[in-house]
């Protein structure tokens, strides 16, 4: 049976590749794919699937005709610009931007399982968890729209994510809004799936249940996105100016301090990144939040679990600092944020102070660690 599932999953990917963007003929509109990650397809009835798909469509429309429940604060005009089939309008504006630029890797549903997904390490981001790695906001907060836009502008060095800096700002904003839409949709779907599949008592989904989904999931998540935009100062982690080093000797001192902090038992950087920052720490079995659920205790369990997911399990590699090309950006300020905030959805924790936790490093410490890391990469 598990092999049959894998065959079906492969067939699906092949089908995607051939009949991109949806798994249907060119004349049919593509649809969003239900999120059954980690579940045995045979355990999900057709009635349950229909209930999930119909409710999701009621809330969020289709890839060709997106819609939004009232009160999410998302910009539907921008979403419309990014949605639908690729087309140019008479006035020179562009439509279907997501399918043009993103869906081949990120998938029509934003599930990170587009036609080319398996060719990448790391995989393209699955937006449905609502987690984004590189942000200027606190470890526990949603990203700002400008964080997502920065990723579009710069790309993610060392991965398959290219830079889209040639796109006009309006198109970048449309794509960012569409990613937020897919993410809000994805988090709502997770909640809906818990109700329908795990709780199993909400079928058929009546007005009360839909109201609950709207309140407890969609508007709740939308609030988190709105809150960071409306109160950025509460969420953005401030980066103090990098100290000025009067001489090479002074800089070398900071690097030496950074190495000591890096190596301390209080920080545990070495655990993953290794004693010399070569990415060869003793924790060599690390996974991001998208892959962690595929990991069992034994290899057999992992193989069994992994088959319940669209993409095979993929290990995470801790950064080898000597390579440079830091994914969240190689500016000293970018690296400061990575150490302070961490990388969301990965084992890289927040080492700087945050509400409720003093953290292991002070801002001064973080600059020393950044200087040490930069000294290894040859970038400064």
């Amino acid at each position, binding site marked *: 049976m598990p092999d049959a599932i894998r065959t079906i999953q492969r067939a699906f990917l092949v089908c995607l590749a051939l009949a991109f963007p949806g798994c249907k003929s060119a004349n049919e509109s593509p649809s969003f794919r239900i999120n059954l990650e980690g579940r045995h397809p045979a355990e999900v009835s057709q009635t349950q699937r229909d209930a999930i798909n119909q409710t999701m469509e009621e809330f969020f429309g289709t890839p060709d005709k997106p819609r939004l429940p009232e009160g999410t604060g998302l910009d539907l005009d921008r979403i419309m610009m990014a949605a639908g089939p690729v087309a140019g309008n008479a006035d020179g504006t562009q439509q279907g931007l997501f399918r043009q630029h993103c869906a081949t890797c990120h998938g029509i549903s934003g599930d990170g399982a587009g036609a080319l997904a398996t060719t990448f390490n790391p995989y393209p981001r699955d937006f449905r968890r609502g987690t984004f790695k590189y942000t200027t906001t606190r470890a*526990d907060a949603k990203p700002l729209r400008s964080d997502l836009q920065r990723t579009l502008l710069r790309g993610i060095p060392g991965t398959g994510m290219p830079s889209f800096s040639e796109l006009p700002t309006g198109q970048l904003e449309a794509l960012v809004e569409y990613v937020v839409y897919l993410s809000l949709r994805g988090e709502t779907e997770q909640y809906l799936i818990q109700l329908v599949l795990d709780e199993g008592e909400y079928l058929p989904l009546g007005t009360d249940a839909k109201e609950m989904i709207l*309140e*407890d*999931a969609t508007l*709740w998540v939308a*609030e988190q996105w709105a809150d960071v935009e409306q109160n950025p100062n509460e969420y953005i982690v401030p980066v103090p100016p990098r100290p000025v080093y009067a001489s090479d000797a002074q800089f070398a001192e900071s690097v030496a301090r950074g190495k000591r902090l890096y190596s301390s038992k209080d920080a545990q950087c070495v655990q993953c990144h290794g004693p010399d920052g070569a990415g060869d720490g003793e924790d060599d079995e690390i996974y991001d939040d998208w892959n962690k659920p595929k990991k069992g205790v034994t290899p057999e369990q992992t193989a069994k679990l992994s088959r319940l997911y669209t993409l095979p399990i993929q290990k995470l590699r801790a950064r080898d600092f000597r390579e440079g090309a830091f994914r969240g950006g190689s500016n000293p300020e970018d690296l400061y944020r990575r150490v302070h905030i961490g990388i969301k959805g990965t084992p890289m*924790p927040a080492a700087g102070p945050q509400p409720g*936790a003093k*953290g292991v490093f002070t801002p001064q410490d973080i600059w020393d660690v950044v200087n040490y890391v930069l000294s290894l990469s040859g970038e400064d």
Partner: protein
Amino acid sequence: MQNSVQPMVRDTDNMNKLNRRQFVGGSTVAAGSLAAGIAMPGIARAAEDAWGDLTGKFVYDGVAPERKKLVVDKDVECCGKFDIRDESLMVGDDGGLKNVYIYVRSKRVDICPDLDKETEDKVLLDNRDCIFVPHCMSIWTSKQKYHIVNSDPVAQNVAFNPLLDKPANIVIPVDGDATWTFRRAQRVPVPIACNYHPWESAYILPLDHPYVAITDENGSFTIPKLPVGELEFQIWHERVGYLNTQDWPKGRMKTTIQAGTNDLGTIKLAPSVLEK
């Protein structure tokens, strides 16, 4: 009496919904007041006999398997000296099953005012001898904060990701601590991991009421001061999630709580119930 207070609860709820809508639209309602829309304590009844305790005991009806020694291959100089074993099935000498969660599943349960005074304002998680202590916890979201400390001579990490709540991935330095708040209730306990030491595991169940118990090493539990009347309970264990038995389909049971002690007696669980 219960009927007469119900409409009031509804009205307050609707007001909260309106506030939340306005907020998303760009108004300035403070985030703190919004949380109340989810964690709405019911209106308490004054009569002293309106509350009852629920007790019982879960027993593993078979020979408990030996708890396996876990692979401890990180920070060996510190963690290697401890006998660290699997905690996913803890059976006492007389068969009592530890770490079964039993909690009220009904929505909008009335909360006894005494509990507001008697409940500690924090729940403690310690990193001690390279494991999480305790292994299973619950938290009343609107009342309690989660206090995490580290008694080990190495830094520890605490990572969890509750559905639609903020994710945590915190470093707790030697002698350090952290305070965390959960913003919403969950239907099932949330797994906690340490990214440095993959053998470490724990669970926490955030709820918007105090009506939860976790069985002790004898398998016994008491949920004090429940409102009298019919309530639905949920049972959950980390081995399988919802404990599915004949009396508890999908781990659920409705019972009518009466003033005083309500004893469920001994609930025997066949080993197959705890296997996936």
